[in-house]
């Protein structure tokens, strides 16, 4: 997409400069042809392809960017001014955490995002798209951390003076055992 955009940009600006500075450039193409080729024939197929591809990609991301998700790990993210509480319905007994989200790696995670006050937006830049936390609504986001590790998260919808500081962290674990381990470490 970026490369195509760069090519199109160079094309248009290049054409502008040549038509201005090279006399008679482009005279042989009629005005109608300029408009039909450049204004319709060029962008329309590109846009159609891009749109179709984007829909397809969108569906893929909605599934959580992985194989069909039959084995989903559910968590809940609740945003309030200005922190995130995470709870784990699929891990009974696991205590809720604040500003740290524990997820298994290499598994599709479904995050139910809610808000307790104003609109926030849940975003882990390196793992995928964002979803708003809208008071009164539950929004779902499916993600997948292919590798274990720590990922930074932010709130990306302006939510008041604490907005810039409304960050959180995601820890993706290899398996359940190391998750429990880390948790016990954190308790200490």
């Amino acid at each position, binding site marked *: 997409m970026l490369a195509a955009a760069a090519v199109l940009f160079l094309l248009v600006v290049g054409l502008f400069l040549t038509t201005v500075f090279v006399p008679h450039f482009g005279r042989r*193409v009629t*005005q109608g042809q300029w408009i039909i080729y450049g204004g319709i024939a060029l962008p329309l197929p590109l846009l159609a392809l891009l749109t179709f591809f984007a829909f397809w990609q969108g569906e893929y991301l909605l599934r959580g960017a992985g194989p069909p998700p039959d084995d989903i790990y559910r968590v809940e993210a609740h945003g309030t001014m200005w922190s995130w509480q995470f709870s784990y319905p699929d891990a009974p007994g696991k205590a809720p955490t604040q500003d740290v989200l524990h997820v298994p790696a290499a598994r599709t995670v479904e995050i139910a995002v809610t808000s307790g006050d*104003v609109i926030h937006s849940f975003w882990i830049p390196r793992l995928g798209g964002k979803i708003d936390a809208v008071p009164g*609504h539950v929004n779902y986001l499916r993600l997948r951390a292919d590798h274990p590790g720590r990922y930074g998260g*932010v709130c990306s919808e*302006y939510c008041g003076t604490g907005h810039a500081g409304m960050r959180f962290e995601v820890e993706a674990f290899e398996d359940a055992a190391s998750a429990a381990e880390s948790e016990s470490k954190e308790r200490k």
Partner: protein
Amino acid sequence: MTERHEQKLSPVALHHALEEVWGTKPGWRRLATINHNVVGKRFMLTALIFFAIGGLLAMLIRVQLASSESVFMDADQYAQVFTMHGSIMMFLFAIPFFEGLTIYLLPKLLGTRDLAFPRMSAYGYWCYLFGGSILIAALVGGVAPDSGWFMYTPLSSSTYAPGINSDVWLLGITFVEISALSAAIEIIVTILKLRAAGMSLDRMPIFAWYMLVVATMMLVGFPPLILGSILLELERAFDLPFFDPTHGGDPLLWQHLFWLFGHPEVYIIFLPAAGAISTILPVFASTPLAGYRIIVAALVSMAFLSFGLWVHHMYTTGIPHVALSFFSAASALVAVPTAIQIFAWLATISHGRPRFSIPMLHIFGFFFVFVIGGLTGVMLAMVPFDWQAHDTHFVVAHLHYVLVGGFVFPMMAAAYYWLPHITGRQPVQHLSQAAFWMIFIGFNVTFFMMHLTGLRGMPRRVFEYPRESGWETLNFISSLGSFVMAMGFALLALDFILLFRFGRRYHRNPWKAGTLEWAMPTPPASYNFASLPSVDRRADQLDPNMLGAQLAAGEGYLGFLRDDRMELLAVNIVSGEPEHVVRFPRQSYLPLLTAVATGGVFGSLLLKLYWLTPLAFIAVVLLFLCWTPDTGEKRDMHSLPIGNHVEVPPHLEAERPPSWWAMILAIVADATSYISLLFGGLFLWVSAPNWPPAVTVEIAIAPCVVIAVLLMLSALCSHRATPAGQHASRYLLICALTQAASTVGFVWLSLTSVPDPSQHAVAATVFIVFVYAGLHCGLSAVLGGYGLWRIRNGYVSARRNLDLRISNLWQEYSTIIGGASLVFPALLASLANGSAP
């Protein structure tokens, strides 16, 4: 009265005679001027001052972001600064600036003497000035709006923003929007009715097509925002919970209403600038614009498509993918009309003999910057990409590439192109080049980097970022660039000032253009044309030098003064044949006074002096009624000579004069907001949490039937009264009384059918629908009374029944609104009760 013009005046004598009536008077009486030359320049100058303020705020933002963990501003100050920067740039700079340019230019391009409703232009200007001043005063006082330029609820609602800040935005901006709406109506009517004789629609200069489309978009784009602002203000002031999820409201409703306005807004800003390019570029290419027809078709398509993509600002709010796909596809499609225009411009250059000069340099800037903005726009239109880039600095980069590329650069080209027209002087071009390159390079350095910071995950609207984020270098470069750009703008301002002081005088038509605005002496006289032109070909291929001389000699239409009145020619909408003479009201202080009273309405709401609001509102209505005596005539004139042996009736005796069309357009705008309100109610039923409501709305049938009968009776009487026959007064009286009774009925309904509008959104919606209908019926009653008064004072005859016809339009419309407002609440109430999952 018909003798005076028979003997022909010399050009100089004609000039003095016209100037006496049209010209702005010195001293305090300047405040009474309604001349479009003056009002247009005031608009532009005021907008530039706001641009400077907004630019200053932008520099504060860049200083803050230059380093990580900066302590220059705290979070609260930063919030006010970015909110005000965005709001000022969008509402107080971009829109008013092109409005001013259009007010100044449009009558000249069309070959007429002023806009259709000069007093409304003046009133609009004062509203703009006062509304804008409220915002700036709040900024100085440290209580500026601070929830971002799109004021998302609940952050902007009273729970989380208890101060006056959000009220300032809602009321100040709505106040300013009055001027946008009145300008929209005025521009449409002017383009449709006040053109040069013979200028059929296909002969209009292309700029007029652009503005016709833009103004129509404004007409249906602004009402949803105004409605949303009113609803939010009602929620803040009186706890009517339209957007409060705990009481059956929905924050997403605000987003829909805002972006239903907000996206078309972007095209509303871009298209006038594109229109300027389509006007300027062919002149420098020394050839007519290529693809005039396909450009017009592209504009029409673009106008519609641009209303079908507002949700691309809401991709991350949890709307299902299918719904997003509608908007995403429309967003992709809207790129095609833009591409058509770009290639039409390229075709024009390639088939001409291009000259390069300062305006072309800025057009180059436009091509370079806007194309990047357009391409990133297409990227953002793609849902998955937007999920990543939404609300990051990538979007900030995109929007500035579009707005600066698509508005500021073309407007600088336009300024260099038309400043000679305004000042009568040509630029000397020492600083112009340097100023351009500094702005251009500074701009790209500033904003190109933001694409990268955005892609690296920097959210927008953060006042600080951690040192280890890796965004610091890029931000620092951005800030450096912005200082270069700011110096460039300072240089540009200096260049303009030098032009005013030391520019070379020139004879006529310095750019060798073919449009009518150059067929007059520059700087222009208040009345533009000493006599009005008639055109026989597309009005961008004329010979201004020859035409100018002929018109100054009084050889066109209306080259004389009659009864010391301002007069101009109205034509058939399609063919451009002369239809009637429009006789303007005289200059007056009423626009200013009415704007002050309107300020009283907004000010009292802002300061929570609610007892004052109805009084101020009544004052506004009364003042508007005072506008009318000057538009009446106490005798039939049948037909008036307009020169060249042509006679046409005066507008009061014409079938569809400008004021009739203005009422139609006002109704269109009002209907848009009413329909938005009804859809809002249905939207809440579908989407909002906490439905079905615990409260029940019970609407008694009997009073509804009574009101319905009254409304029908009043519509019938209004219809009967309109021909101004014998019993007109009697019918009007019944109409006014029945409408007044309906008003009372709606007030009664609004008080009794809902237990307490603050309990649940359904109650609040029903309440507001009733109030809305009540207001309309009330206004109908006032118009009925007005008609009676006009008849009594001899302003009305069977030929001069325009007042009655215009009132009739409104009365029938409010009957429809009243009927719908009786049905809809019942519908919503039954949906609400039946909607248990």
